[in-house]
């Protein structure tokens, strides 16, 4: 029956030509092939976010006097509201984790080399936007933790030289974090960011489809020397079914986590209460937060925090443009970059652990 439907569409839209390349699509098979799943898992979790986000939109009220109560309503009154909300929160965290894992796997397997530079650039932009999703979404339940996390986060943005203050006012919708900030973050979270990210994902996937999967340098060299070693798997149906299975397992894990460790509601914002002791941002910002805390308040003539923010900015720019710093073939420079990548990973993990232990 599905074949009949496809035939009906093909008669009118000539899909055969468009879909033909997919029939021949292959995925390289080697020791590191499992890392190929991480991009797809991130996409899957994004789709889960869109779906659960739309469901939450049916009942959420974006306003300082109603937001907390509406989330409370969702988790107490709406049928399976607790589950949908928990899935949304858990999937957000898992998605950021898989996005980082995907980025690091591409980094260490050097998949960003020519001709895939633009894929890397769109990917890093997507990573930044996904963290923006996390930052904006975190405020929406309007509880004390989110309120102070947003205050600190936007204040850090305000430290950027020259444009920082204007950025902070723009993000906050005013000099302080208020209901105006909530409304603004809501707009970013459900309209602006989804629009931009959907387009970027489309572009990112288009590049991947056009260029196929990259193979790590060592394997590439081996296969070039001896073409009989080349092992490939058909995408349809072999890899596609495996990917579907990975998504299925991911879905099961998500449901299990959401059900067994439901997300907290917290306490409604009281702007005149003091910040809770030991407050810290969500884990995916913790490494930055902890690193900034370690910088002394004055370094030579510069303000320590400003130096830290500028440092973060430089690191982010280098990250974004990394393929243009590296070489196509293994070289001394590519080894240096690998070393820096290891340092970056260890630094991030180390700072995150330190951040948890220190508080």
């Amino acid at each position, binding site marked *: 029956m599905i074949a009949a439907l496809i035939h009906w569409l093909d008669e009118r839209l000539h899909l055969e030509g468009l879909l033909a390349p997919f029939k021949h699509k292959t995925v390289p098979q080697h020791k590191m092939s499992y890392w190929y799943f991480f991009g797809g898992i991130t996409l899957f979790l994004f789709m889960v976010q869109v779906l659960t986000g739309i*469901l939450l939109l*049916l009942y959420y009220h974006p306003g300082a006097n109603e937001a907390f109560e509406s989330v409370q309503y969702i988790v107490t*009154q709406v049928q399976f509201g607790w589950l949908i909300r928990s899935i949304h929160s858990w999937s957000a965290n898992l998605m950021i984790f898989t996005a980082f894992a995907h980025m690091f796997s591409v980094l260490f397997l050097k998949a960003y080399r020519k001709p895939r530079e633009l894929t890397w650039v769109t990917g890093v932009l997507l990573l930044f936007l996904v963290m923006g999703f996390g930052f904006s979404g975190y405020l929406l339940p309007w509880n004390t933790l989110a309120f102070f996390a947003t205050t600190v986060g936007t204040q850090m943005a305000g430290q950027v030289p020259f444009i920082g203050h204007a950025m902070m006012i723009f993000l906050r919708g005013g000099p302080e974090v208020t209901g105006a900030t909530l409304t603004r973050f809501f707009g970013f979270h459900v309209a602006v960011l989804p629009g931009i990210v959907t387009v970027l994902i489309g572009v990112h996937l288009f590049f991947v489809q056009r260029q196929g999967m990259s193979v790590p340098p060592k394997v590439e060299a081996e296969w070039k020397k001896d073409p009989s070693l080349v092992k490939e798997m058909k995408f349809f149906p072999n890899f596609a079914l495996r990917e579907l299975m990975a998504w299925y397992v991911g879905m099961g894990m998500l449901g299990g986590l959401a059900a067994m460790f439901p997300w907290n509601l917290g306490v409604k914002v009281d702007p005149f209460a003091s910040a809770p002791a030991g407050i810290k941002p969500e884990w995916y910002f913790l490494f930055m937060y902890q690193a900034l805390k370690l910088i002394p308040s004055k370094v030579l003539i510069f303000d320590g925090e400003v130096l830290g923010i500028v440092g973060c900015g430089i690191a982010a720019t280098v990250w974004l443009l990394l393929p243009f710093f590296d070489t196509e073939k293994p070289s001394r420079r590519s080894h240096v970059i690998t070393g820096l990548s290891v340092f970056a990973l260890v630094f991030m993990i180390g700072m995150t652990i330190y951040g948890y232990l220190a508080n």
Partner: protein
Amino acid sequence: MSTGTDCPCQQQPTRRGFVGLFLGGGMLATFASFLYPVMRFFVPPTVADLGGDEVVAAKVGDLKENSGKIFKFGSRPGLLILEASGTYHAMSATCTHLGCTVQYKGDTHQVWCPCHNGTYDLNGRNVSGPPPEAIGCIRRAPARR
């Protein structure tokens, strides 16, 4: 290998087809199990809005004795009455007849609906006119400083 059957259109089931059936059937069942909570989620709960369960109706001194005041209770109007004796009464201000907003009349010491001349006593009981049932009372918390 399969032996020929009489009907030329009947294919012998293959192992692949059998496994495929299980795979497809399992995926469909899983999908259905996700659809159930989502469908239930769509149906709005009986409590249409948690507009807030406690409201400040008025401050002490707002009301003159033997007068009433309409206050916002979630998305509906409430009526707060201060008797001459100093007792407060709070009730829904929506007439049970056809939904008009009622008011307190100091001369008759009754709650009156201007739409069809229905009246209620200070406990919300329907006294005269078309209202078919009593008006709902709202619990008052003791006055707080």
